[in-house]
């Protein structure tokens, strides 16, 4: 076994720590921008201005909201499991950093080089379900429990087609390394995986919506029926962390989608990170567009759609991919 020298360790460590700090800044800054963007998109689709008063065109609205949220009292409901109740927001937010680690931002720009990046992301993305379940259950609130139960059923179900659609790309490229997957694609749209695997892309996107509890699959929150579902009882930054985690998870879903299907950081003229950011934000805009267009599905529709449509289609897609990879 190779025991790393002190010098090697410290360089790796410095890279990791620096990367984590940058990622934390990126996640926080994106949360601010994306919440503002979401409210603007919602406003314009409903033909109203959205946030407008704080800063030019309401740009500072999210900062004002964040300041308000930080200042709020953290209330633990009576009869709640205090430890689990406050563990849940942390559990939702902490894995976010791990999710961003293996994403490659450009040629040689990454925090952690691993040939199992995809597995790392998929494994740690599952922790979000645990956080939602723990939070909902520990609140001692019927809406919380209902939201948690829905979240578990939904996430467990939708993880299957998600994995299967990702697996199709892995079959094609023969790799779980995100850097490698990007390198195998070209600069131009017709060299991207989405042309070869359009079905996998669409299904990955749908499952990404469901995994991040976004409308039209936002049943765990379900404002109209469950007040706020699993985070009904959370005040102040407890709720804030859940929301930040949700936006960060969406960003990871979009990042992975860009890397697997849309050529990642590759693109003409501009340097890599800009291309990845542009692709991520385009997908985010698509997610927001969907949220403000489609009504929430019913729970039976949600599960029927998954088990009767998505899983058979992805299985067929995967089988076809395997056959074609073997033949050619």
């Amino acid at each position, binding site marked *: 076994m190779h025991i790393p020298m002190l010098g090697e360790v410290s360089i790796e460590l410095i890279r990791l720590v620096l990367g984590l700090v940058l990622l934390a800044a990126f996640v926080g800054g994106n949360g601010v921008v994306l919440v503002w963007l979401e409210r603007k998109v919602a406003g*314009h689709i409903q033909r109203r201005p959205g946030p407008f008063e704080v800063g030019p065109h309401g740009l500072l609205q999210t900062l004002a909201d964040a300041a308000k949220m930080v200042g709020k009292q953290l209330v633990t409901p009576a009869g709640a499991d205090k430890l689990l109740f406050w563990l849940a927001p942390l559990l939702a937010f902490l894995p976010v950093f791990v999710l961003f680690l293996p994403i490659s931002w450009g040629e040689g720009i990454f925090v952690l080089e691993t040939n199992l990046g995809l597995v790392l992301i998929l494994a740690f993305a599952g922790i979000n379900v645990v956080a939602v379940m723990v939070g909902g259950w520990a609140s001692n609130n019927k809406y919380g429990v209902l939201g948690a139960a829905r979240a578990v059923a939904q996430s467990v179900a939708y993880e299957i087609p998600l994995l299967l659609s990702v697996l199709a790309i892995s079959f094609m490229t023969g790799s779980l390394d995100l850097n490698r997957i990007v390198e195998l694609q070209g600069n131009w749209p017709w060299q991207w995986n989405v042309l070869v695997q359009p079905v996998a892309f669409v299904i990955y996107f749908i499952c990404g919506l469901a995994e991040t509890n976004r409308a039209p699959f936002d049943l765990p929150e379900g404002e109209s029926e469950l007040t706020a579902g699993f985070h009904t009882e959370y005040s102040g930054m407890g709720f804030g962390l859940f929301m930040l985690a949700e936006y960060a998870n969406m960003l990871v879903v979009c990042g992975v989608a860009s890397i697997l299907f849309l050529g990642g950081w590759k693109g003409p003229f501009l340097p890599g990170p800009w291309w990845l950011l542009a692709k991520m934000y385009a997908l985010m805009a698509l997610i927001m567009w969907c949220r403000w*267009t489609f009504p929430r599905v019913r729970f039976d529709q949600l599960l029927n759609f998954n088990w009767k449509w998505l899983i058979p289609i992805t299985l067929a897609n995967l089988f076809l991919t395997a056959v074609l990879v073997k033949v050619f």
Partner: protein
Amino acid sequence: MSVVYDIAKKVASMWSLIVGLRVTTKNFFQPQVTVHYPRQSVDNLSTFRGHIELVGQPKDPATPRCITCMLCATVCPSQCISITKAKAPPPEPAKKLPDHAEGPLVPPEKAEPPKAKVIKTPGSFELNFNTCSLCGMCVQNCPVSSLRFSTDVYAAGFSRQEFEYDLMARLRLQAAVLGVAASQVNSPACEDTLERVDPEKYRLAKGPLTQADAVTKGKRGQAA
């Protein structure tokens, strides 16, 4: 075959998702319909049903058409209207008969007693808007159409007392403002008065301003 048909039908129905996205996109790029309140205010107020206000007589806009029949106060389910009748002016002192009266001499006990003039305008007309449910029964039942809904969209205040309206004072103020405005349109001197014709600004000025005040204000404006 029906299975295939069902699947084909379901797949075809996915088109509605695209239609939905198209609808939201179209709306996204269309102009907004909301009004940025502090900088703009709404202008389609003709059908707005605010608190009630009195309607002036056509010839004397400062005096309400009201005949104090009390119907509005009676039908009001919240009893938020209180009206007092104006006191009749004190009867004129009986004319002293001249010592040498001309004409037929009528004994004083047989002469008709001097008729007190019937005063029908209200002395005060107060609305307690705090309990008003805006049912409009008063407006509907007024036999002389002396009540209407105001267009005070932005009525807001810090205390209950601010919503106890003296409608007589309000009518006098409206008449004064409109009178001054009508006589001095386009005169820069009365800009402040004209401004108050604007209902929102006017509301701020709805304090106990009498007609005389408004008129002096107008004159001051003229002088300046």
